[in-house]
């Protein structure tokens, strides 16, 4: 076991990793916080349609300063724009898209992800915290592929990938894939499987910071780089 601290990726680099794996033509919901960064990392030659659950399909980039519209916001309540081909609709229609399985991918943050795909991301269960769930439970139960984008460990250095979640669950067995600063990890029937490592990060580095067994499913032993469009073909489709 090594005690060195691998550098890992920064937020934007993780976002580029996720963006690389979103196929052209996908309908995608990006969760509040870290996943919002993904929007600006999607390659120009892909047409990806962004959904925001407060009633917009075809979300465009933030407006230039001074052109914000308080009635045109995303789920994080940040000002956005409507891209050509966009449509507005009410909340029941918006969640029909989500619950009905019409979205291809959602990317959410996480407090914990368990080896069986359980996700905890809405509440620490602390006595005096105000619980707030938003659309997270709807997204994980309805969207075809659920990706998590998160730091591999908490600020205190605790692993977020665990055998069993301690926090209240958002959904059981719902996560398909996790993108962290260290690795891309797939949830398989056998548990966590590393698909890819960040540059300069070893399997041992990841294993040391993961509180559940890790399988190695890297299709090549070469470390890949999030900038490349070199995702193995079996991973380029929507699971």
């Amino acid at each position, binding site marked *: 076991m090594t005690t060195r601290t691998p550098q890992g990726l920064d937020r934007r680099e993780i976002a580029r990793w996720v963006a690389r794996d979103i196929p052209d033509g996908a*309908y995608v919901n990006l969760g509040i916080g870290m996943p919002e960064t993904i929007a600006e990392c999607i390659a120009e030659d892909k047409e990806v349609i962004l959904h925001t659950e407060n009633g917009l399909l075809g979300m465009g980039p933030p407006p230039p300063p001074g052109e914000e519209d308080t009635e045109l916001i995303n789920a994080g309540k940040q000002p956005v724009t409507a891209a*050509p*081909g966009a449509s507005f609709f009410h909340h029941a229609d918006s969640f029909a898209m989500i619950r009905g399985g019409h979205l291809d991918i959602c990317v959410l943050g996480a407090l914990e992800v368990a080896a069986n795909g359980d996700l905890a991301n809405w509440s620490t269960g602390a006595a005096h915290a105000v619980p707030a769930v938003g659309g997270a439970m709807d997204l994980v139960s309805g969207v075809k592929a659920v990706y998590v984008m998160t730091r591999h460990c908490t600020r205190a250095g605790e692993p977020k990938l665990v055998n069993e979640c301690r926090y209240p669950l958002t959904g059981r067995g719902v996560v398909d894939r996790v993108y962290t600063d260290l690795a891309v990890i797939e949830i398989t029937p056998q548990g966590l499987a590393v698909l890819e490592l960040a540059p300069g990060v070893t399997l041992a580095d990841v294993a040391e910071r993961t509180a559940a067994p890790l399988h190695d499913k890297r299709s090549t032993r070469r470390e890949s780089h999030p900038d490349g469009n070199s995702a193995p073909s079996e991973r380029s489709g929507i699971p």
Partner: protein
Amino acid sequence: MIDKRFADPSAAVRDIGDGATLMVGGFGEAGSPVELIDALIEQGAGDLTVITNNAGSGTTGLAALIKAGRVAKMICSYPRSADSEVFAEQYRAGRIRLELVPQGTLAERIRTAGAGIPAFYTPTAVGTSLAQGKPHRRFDDRECVLEHALGADVALIKAAAADRHGNLVYSKTARNFAPLMATAAETTIAQTSVVVGLGSLDPEAVVTPGIFVDRVVLIGRSPQRLDPSGSETGWL
């Protein structure tokens, strides 16, 4: 690049197989996707289950599909027509099965299929033969019956205008079941006589967002109908 346009009705319905469950938009003739149905008749798929409100009128479209013997079962609310005996003849001869569903229950069953809701309770039809054998439950002293979501393999619908993302608007009462069916089928095929450039449809007035539509077929119009203000490069 998202471009859901198909060259013609034949190409759009080519992969519909025998035994498929099909939703067909329209209330009477308003909103009936006649050209898509004609292409399907020519294509030859049979043993179909058809979910729709009526059972065809006149001798074209759905009536012709039924007459050609392609429909094994109808799920609808009003399979009676003043101007067509096609369904009635096959029904009386025992060549076609019928599941009769109250119109509002039919609409909601289709909507819930699209919305990921597997079942719902409704007061409609309680105490009638159409609720017999179904689970009942009281809510606030009102007896209700459990109805299940109703999805399909393919939806054939008619829109007034579309863009390459599959965003749709409709014409007046030709809207009827189409926006619901678009959400409830694995593959939704929309015919239209107008395709406009992306961004030409008012985002506030789009009725069916493109996420629900897989294929758009332009019927009987030439490429110059494409909105020149749009970003389209022309008809496929």
